[in-house]
């Protein structure tokens, strides 16, 4: 019988990067890469597990922005076009590398892999990648958590209660629309918790959320069981917390598995190695070198010298690492079980994007972890957080501490000298939104449309991704532009609504560009 439980959580999120106004958008590539490298590979792993009759439990959080993009016909079409481009490049690579056996073999593997991805996207899933996740949830194999409408960092929006409530309510309503039921669990963007947000979650029917470790260890009163059992916030919402050990093993770029020398080197893409004229039809139309996803080298070592990738070595390593991960969890559970009055629970949340994108072998590792856990041991069992609460509905009450999973564990990443200018606008706009909604009685059809669009623009401005990127520097220009664009559109709409002068043509343009939640009752 199992001595303890393990809940693996994949946080699946991308900001809303949909740019119909550009023929070729660099930022949309994040989405296309994630589909090819993360979501389809993970889905195929789940399909394999199901076909082989394994009883598994995994947890996914699916942000509304990602789900909306996966369901968007425009992005689906563009994705397909992009994938076709990639397949054509892989074909060309097969020919180019014919005289280099080690590389040629890899080129053929990439070609086959992209064809499999296309087959899954077009035929198995009919372009809709949300539906299979929903099916796995309906089968009871995975549990999908809801999240805030546009991944807003709630602790810094909390000066406007209405902003926090709208993010949570719309996020949950969208989930219901997409997954056909209301979520029991809620992923707080960036694990950003502040005391009080749990009450909003409870009012929306949410039963649990997941915090960074110190959200729980610094709760008051002091939790009895560390992070190995949830607490209930005074509102009744259960707060689970991340286990630092299992996180580090997978996450850390220094100690973690993904840094193993046999694994594929992320930064050595043919986009940066080959002649630009050869690449031109397959990279950005302006000749900007962007990752193609075709990478022939393994990490090899700490220097820039890279050796060719050997798939068998990497697969073998993924299996060894899966075994090591389980072994460590078993040891952990054995120790904890001897110290606890119940079965300990290890909660291991990761960014889904790590699996397949940053860590190419990540999906293979997940596959091995689930198979080995099912077949080769019985001391630890995978479960969903809902199942845990069904088994243990009685939990200690404490108020978690304000916390996030950002650097240093608080608000520093999203609030510092580089990005603090955003908040006075977000706070002002949220207050304006409240006023707009109170004023209109009864608004006409055009005003209603403008109000809904104002809300969309505000939601999009609130995404935590922009402040994150501005802070990290790499994508600062784009993130700044996005923040300003949505705020300015919001301000413009707000003026027009107040002056009863909505510009219908302009509104229509913005509705088609920033079309998230276009079928949701936003007001």
């Amino acid at each position, binding site marked *: 019988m199992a001595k303890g439980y393990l809940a693996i959580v994949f946080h699946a999120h991308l900001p809303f990067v949909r740019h119909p106004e550009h023929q070729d958008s660099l930022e949309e590539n994040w989405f296309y890469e994630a589909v090819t490298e993360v979501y389809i590979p993970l889905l195929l792993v789940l399909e394999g597990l199901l076909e082989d009759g394994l009883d598994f439990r995994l947890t996914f959080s699916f942000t509304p922005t990602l789900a909306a993009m996966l369901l968007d016909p425009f992005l689906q079409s563009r994705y397909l076009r992009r994938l076709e481009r990639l397949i054509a490049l892989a074909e060309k690579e097969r020919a180019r590398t014919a005289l280099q056996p080690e590389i040629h073999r890899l080129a053929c593997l990439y070609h086959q892999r992209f064809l499999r991805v296309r087959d899954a996207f077009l035929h198995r899933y009919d372009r809709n990648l949300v539906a299979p996740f929903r099916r796995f949830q309906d089968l009871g194999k995975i549990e999908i958590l809801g999240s805030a409408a546009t991944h807003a960092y709630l602790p810094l929006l909390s000066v406007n209660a209405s902003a926090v409530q709208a993010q949570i309510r719309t996020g949950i309503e969208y989930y219901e629309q997409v997954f056909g039921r209301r979520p029991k669990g809620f992923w707080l963007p960036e694990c950003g918790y502040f005391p009080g947000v749990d009450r909003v979650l409870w009012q929306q029917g949410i039963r649990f959320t997941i915090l960074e470790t110190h959200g729980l260890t610094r709760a008051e009163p002091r939790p009895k069981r560390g992070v190995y059992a949830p607490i209930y916030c005074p509102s009744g919402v259960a707060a689970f917390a991340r286990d630092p050990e299992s996180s580090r093993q997978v996450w850390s770029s220094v100690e973690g598995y993904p840094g193993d020398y046999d694994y594929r080197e992320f930064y050595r893409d043919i986009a940066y190695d080959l002649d630009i004229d050869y690449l031109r039809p397959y990279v950005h139309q302006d000749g900007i070198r962007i990752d193609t996803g075709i990478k022939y080298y393994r990490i090899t070592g700490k220097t820039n010298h890279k050796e060719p990738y050997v798939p068998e070595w990497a697969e073998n390593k993924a299996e060894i690492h899966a075994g090591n991960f389980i072994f460590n969890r078993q040891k952990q559970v054995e120790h*904890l079980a001897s110290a606890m009055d119940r079965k300990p629970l290890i909660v291991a949340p990761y960014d889904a994007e790590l699996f397949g994108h940053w860590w190419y072998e990540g999906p293979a590792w997940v596959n091995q972890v689930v198979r080995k856990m099912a077949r080769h041991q019985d001391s630890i069992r995978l479960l969903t957080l809902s199942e845990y609460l069904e088994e243990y509905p009685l939990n200690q009450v404490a108020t978690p501490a304000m916390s996030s999973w950002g650097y240093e564990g608080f608000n520093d*990443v999203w609030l510092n000298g580089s990005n603090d200018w955003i908040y006075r606008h977000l706070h002002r706009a949220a207050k304006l939104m409240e006023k707009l909604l109170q004023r209109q009685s009864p608004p006409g059809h055009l005003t209603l449309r403008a109000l809904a669009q104002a809300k969309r623009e505000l939601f999009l401005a609130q995404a935590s991704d922009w402040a994150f990127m501005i802070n990290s520097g790499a994508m600062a220009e784009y993130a700044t532009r996005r923040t300003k664009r949505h705020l300015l559109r919001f301000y413009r709409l707000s003026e027009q609504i107040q002056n009863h002068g909505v510009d219908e043509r302009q509104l229509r343009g913005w509705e*088609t560009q920033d079309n998230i939640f276009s079928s949701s009752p936003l007001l």
Partner: protein
Amino acid sequence: MKKRQERTKSKQSSHGAPPPKISPDEVKPAQKWEAETPEASAQVECESEELPKIDEETKVVLLPVNPYLVHVYWGIAANDLEEIARVLRRVGPRAQPVLRFYDVTQADVDATSAPSWFEVEIDLRAGNWYVHLESPGKSYCLDLGLRTEGGGFQPLARSNVTETPRAWPSDKVEESYLLVEEDSPPVATAVPPGEPAEEGQAPAVPVSADEQYGGEEKELERQERTHFRTFAPGKMERIIAELYGQRRREWSGLASKAGGTDDPQPSGKERADLTELSERSFRTGLASSRKSP
């Protein structure tokens, strides 16, 4: 997005470019769809403009950054600027703009005593300020104002109340429990270790002092919660007994290190502190720079 920062390749703007050349020939449905949509030609507006100045009212907002740092931003409305100018004309250049911080951590406990305060001198034109604080886990609000000679204070605006995060585990070890089950309101109970609770003796759940969230709904919720569900006889006792049944055994031994791969046996008889254990492991993780931006 966590690891996006590791990406060092520069990304450039994708504005205003000609249509792409696409060689694969199997993309007709997608291209057709795209060619028909008006979206691709939609104008991008609002990107070159600057955000407006937004000082239509005098206000000051306080935001926590971490246990030892807060951010304050403010705006001064035009008519208040005139007022400030008047004050300055009257008292001369000795008036000093300050942020007056009030520690309101205990305010709800004893509303009669005035909260302690301290001041931080600022440059009013800066529009925002970062203030280092010595003790974490406190509630603050502040006044933006002018300190005049002789101890006078001319407030301009009062901020929201905010809490700074805690920086270490709590020493408060009181235990109370909730039972939350599907389709039922939560049931509160306080259970001293080793003693089964008796029915009907459920004290109120401690409710956080933060009144901003919930408001009326919270009051309703609290009323609802007072209708505690009655248990089938013995059910609570059974649950509590299960919960605490092993505790006497269990606390007699715990591994000094439960996360490890090498520590084979629980060590000694000391009382387990899983919170301390988790906290220590978490700090180790921070030190190894898991997610530096």
